[in-house]
């Protein structure tokens, strides 16, 4: 539960930061929520908890008063990403990088701007590393508490 609550709070805070472009560099901002979700999915195999975090992400990032096509498409992509986590059996770091790259391209599928997608992908991969360290630390604390 500690890992779930930590991820929940991280997604809450950083999704709101995405709405303020707090971490945008040269006008391009990373998809922090995506990075946290990918890392979490490698550590937590329970689909109920994964689904809760996906729905939280959609709720916070939905930029419309109604449930539009964009929100539905984003939700589908995020669930595809979580499914890929279970199918990629390679080394976790490499798998996470590839999955984040695929997700970034899918989420920008309607914007044919290779430069922006490339830079955003680099940011997202960097964040996967960062949150991977953070959530691994939290996960190790969870293990030591359970021991």
């Amino acid at each position, binding site marked *: *539960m500690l890992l*779930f609550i930590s991820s929940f709070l991280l997604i809450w805070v950083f*999704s*709101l930061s*995405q*709405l*303020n*472009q*707090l971490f*945008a560099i*040269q*006008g*391009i*901002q990373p*998809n922090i*929520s995506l990075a946290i979700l990918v890392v979490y999915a490698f550590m937590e195999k329970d689909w*109920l*908890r994964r*689904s*809760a975090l996906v*729905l*939280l992400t*959609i*709720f*916070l*990032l*939905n*930029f*419309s*008063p*109604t*449930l539009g096509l*964009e*929100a539905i498409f984003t939700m589908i992509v995020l669930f595809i990403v979580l499914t890929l986590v279970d199918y990629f059996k390679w080394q976790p770091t490499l798998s996470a990088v590839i999955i984040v790259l695929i997700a970034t391209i899918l*989420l*920008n599928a*309607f*914007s044919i*701007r290779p*430069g*922006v997608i490339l830079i*955003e992908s680099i940011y997202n991969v960097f964040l996967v590393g960062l949150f991977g360290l953070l959530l691994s630390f939290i996960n190790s604390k969870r293990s030591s508490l359970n021991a």
Partner: protein
Amino acid sequence: MMRGRYLIIGLIIILGIFIIFGGAFFEAKLSFNKTLRDFFQNLSPYSDLKIRIAELERENEELKTKILLDETNPNSSVVVYASHPLNDRSEIAIAIGSDEGVEKGDAVTYGNSILVGRVKTVSPNISIVTTIFDPGFETPVRIGVDSVDALLKGGNELTLRLIAPDAFIENDSIVYTADPSFPYGLEIGRVRSVNKSEGGVFQKASVNPAFEIKLLRNVVVHK
């Protein structure tokens, strides 16, 4: 263990309701986001200065524009709640809607004379604005004192296309709107560089925008 699962299931149901009936919570979510943004802004020692610099630059641009073009009628400003969270669409949410007469297609400016974008969707108290940074944004513009015609293409980098091959454009020339759906003469930015491609029919240019979207706090809607 089972209690934990029931909690997660309850959370999923609640989030599902929030998403499906999003309209009721959209304004509350954006208000909370604005509060959080203001809180983080107050923590940073230089954020006030950055916003003050942006405001001064805006006033400076407005004064320059007034020298060159007619002044538009002043309207009261409204708060910018948030920017679109993904890179492929540049939209902002503003704290005004149909209850105050806003309609789809209304022009939105920073101050009175710098174009931000146009209203895309309207709710009773909130409107979503497509900004000039949206990749799909296009509008006819004119450049500089010679009023050279061009087409502005939106995106992370603003570009000018369809510039006549024999037109002379200087760097730092002002770029302003010439679209009948906007008030005439709203500033968009200044020319950064001109690309006179050999063998091409038209010239191209890149534009430095007159505002930074992440420093946008208030805008004006031209109803």
